């Protein structure tokens, strides 16, 4: 092996020693750097990404929702249409960009309407089919998946009752819940105590209809307002739910028995550190000696 040996040069040892010392110093710097590597990632509420269809107009023919991935157009999901005021089951999709199109069921006809959706990790979306006889549209509602306060639920109202252009929705005691809610729009989520809540909805100035809603703690609910003629009724759809009682804080689930699985690790590390220091010292000393010896006229 090593047949490529060159004659000595004065600086040879010294350069080896310097190179080794610098590399050692660099690696040592890495060693003592704070372990900033364990930064906690951003918390996403859900693990998957979800999508569903809400039918918010009653004049549309039987439709279905086609969800096509922009990255992989051949992979598409079809969500069958549902009845007026209903929502489909959630479908899990990969996070990414999608084209969603609403078209008459079972037909190869061009879609009635389409839109794009940038689906994020851990989010869930309700795609509302909205509009009237002449034109239909797709609205993207992002569902709230954050934890409500203990013993409370989150409720939003989606207005799908066409006769009145806007509706006023009030909570118990006439407290405003969503005022001037346009048809096809959704209110913000509001937290309510778990149990039964009576909402009242009606056109501004007109008598309101009482709509009882029952929610559980840690539940997220959409109340879809629908109309038969001029009468308003509601359908309560669960967006998401979690444990009704949420234990706060972490879980202590270890006794440290495997920490000792590396017996002598500290002693071994210390020995390695001593070896590193000794070897560096030796290299520098040998380098200096050889360098010094050979300096001079030759």
């Amino acid at each position, binding site marked *: 092996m*090593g047949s490529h040996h060159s004659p000595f040069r004065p600086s040879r040892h010294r350069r080896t020693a310097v190179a080794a010392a610098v590399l050692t110093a660099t690696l040592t710097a890495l060693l003592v750097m704070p372990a900033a590597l364990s930064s906690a990632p951003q918390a996403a509420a859900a693990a998957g990404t979800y999508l569903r269809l809400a039918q918010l107009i009653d004049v549309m023919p039987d439709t279905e929702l086609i969800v096509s991935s922009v990255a992989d157009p051949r992979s598409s999901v079809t969500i069958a249409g549902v009845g007026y005021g209903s929502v489909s089951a959630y479908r899990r999709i990969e996070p990414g960009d999608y084209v969603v199109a609403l078209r008459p069921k079972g037909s190869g006809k061009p879609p009635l309407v389409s839109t794009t959706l940038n689906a994020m990790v851990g989010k869930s979306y309700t795609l509302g089919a909205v509009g009237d006889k002449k034109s239909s549209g797709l609205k993207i509602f992002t569902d709230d998946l*954050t934890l409500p306060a203990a013993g409370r639920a989150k409720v939003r109202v989606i207005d799908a009752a066409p006769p009145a252009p806007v509706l006023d929705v009030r909570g118990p005691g006439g407290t405003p819940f969503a005022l001037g809610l346009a048809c096809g729009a959704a209110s913000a989520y509001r937290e309510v105590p778990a149990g039964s809540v009576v909402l009242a909805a009606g056109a501004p100035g007109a008598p309101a209809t009482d709509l009882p809603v029952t929610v559980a703690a840690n539940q997220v609910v959409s109340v879809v307002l629908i109309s038969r003629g001029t009468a308003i009724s509601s359908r309560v759809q669960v967006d998401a739910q*979690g*444990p009704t009682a949420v234990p706060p804080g972490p879980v202590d689930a*270890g006794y440290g028995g495997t920490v000792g699985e*590396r017996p002598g690790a500290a002693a071994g590390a210390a020995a390695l550190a001593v070896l590193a220091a000794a*070897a560096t010292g030796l290299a520098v000393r040998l380098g200096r000696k050889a360098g010094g010896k050979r300096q001079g006229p030759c």
Partner: protein
Amino acid sequence: MLTAPDLVVPDLDALIGPDAWLPGLATALAAGLLLWPIGSRLRLLPTSRAAAIALFAVATLLIDTYSELGADGRAAFLLGAGAWLAVHGRWRAVLAVLAAVGAAVVSPLVGVGVLVLIGGLALQAGLLRRWSVGVRRAVAVVALLGAVAIALSQVRRLGAPALPPLLLAVLTVWTLLVVGLLWRRQPWLRPVGAAVTAVLACAWLPGTASASAVVVAASAALLTVVLVEEYRTLLARQLLAAAVAAGAVALALVGPGVGGGRVAHVADTADDRTGAPAIPAGPPGPAFATVRPVTISIPAIGVDGPLEDLEADPVTRELAAPDDPSVAGWYAAGVVPGDTGPAVIGGHVDSRSGPGVFFGLRRLVAGDVVRIRRSDGSTVRFTVTGVRRYPKDRFPTDAVYGPAPAPELRLVTCGGVFDRAERNYQDNVVVDAVLSKR
């Protein structure tokens, strides 16, 4: 006693693991000391040999610091002994081969390097010199195919690379630089360089042990001083510049907002690639479940056992872990696995004497499967989407217990640094999973 289900799986580590062998670091130390006689065989100057040992020792300390399971020097020691024995005499050559085989048994990925070395030597006529070119080529092909087969068989056995990407990147830059510079002018080193590069590539694969990184560190330390001796001034300077550059890159990587930790959140991977998988809609979870989960099975980490009921501590209101460290438990006041919402299952990472049921949890990766059998006779299958580690003082209650639109699963155990004074781990490891099949 070690009663954790994942230890029941036959495993070489159980036979010659750290318990029965000298601790990994002690053998790493011995491997470092072996660099001296090997350097002597290579006719390196004493200065260089000392420098190689210093480099190796520091690199191994780094690996031990950043690897969750610590540095394992057994394979490096065996390979070092083999390299030292390899020259002069048939019997010593036989012993060298035995040492290499031993190293491959300890860490199969090291076998990849040994086979690449054999293949390279055969191609280069450094081995089987008296045989025809055809035979040597055939041997090389067999050896290289064997190397690929071993590498593939090791992928995902343990779940995640042994080292954080940052450290692997530094090791890679250092090694590739040295091997690359030696490649052109030192043809006799090419098989060695190829073998070291192969082991290095394997160290990036999910499921690798830190043993392969220690081997690369030892080889790279030795090759570094060979390089410096061979090329003296010019390359020594380049090496210095490269080391500084590598350090700068490393520092940049450590900067805030980059990296995301050893256990990074991994994007969801579909088990059904033909399209977005359908979610069987879960029935809404009743307030008081009549159905309960009975058993949990996670084939990737050898977990298969019963589930007990967990409840919140009446005083602290925190979720109490199971009494038995070898049994996982289900948060019974929560969601039933398979019903809409996040079902929470907790288990101990270890007992006072050894691994617990969820010891291997941190090694799960996106795509791994968790099966839960329920008391109604059905089995629900979940697919892991990510593994995350949180400091306990920043436990993501929102992400673990927050409402979900479909059936999901959270597996929780301890992780991170063990605080000996508090007898407590500082972090929680949380595995997220989504329903993939009912």
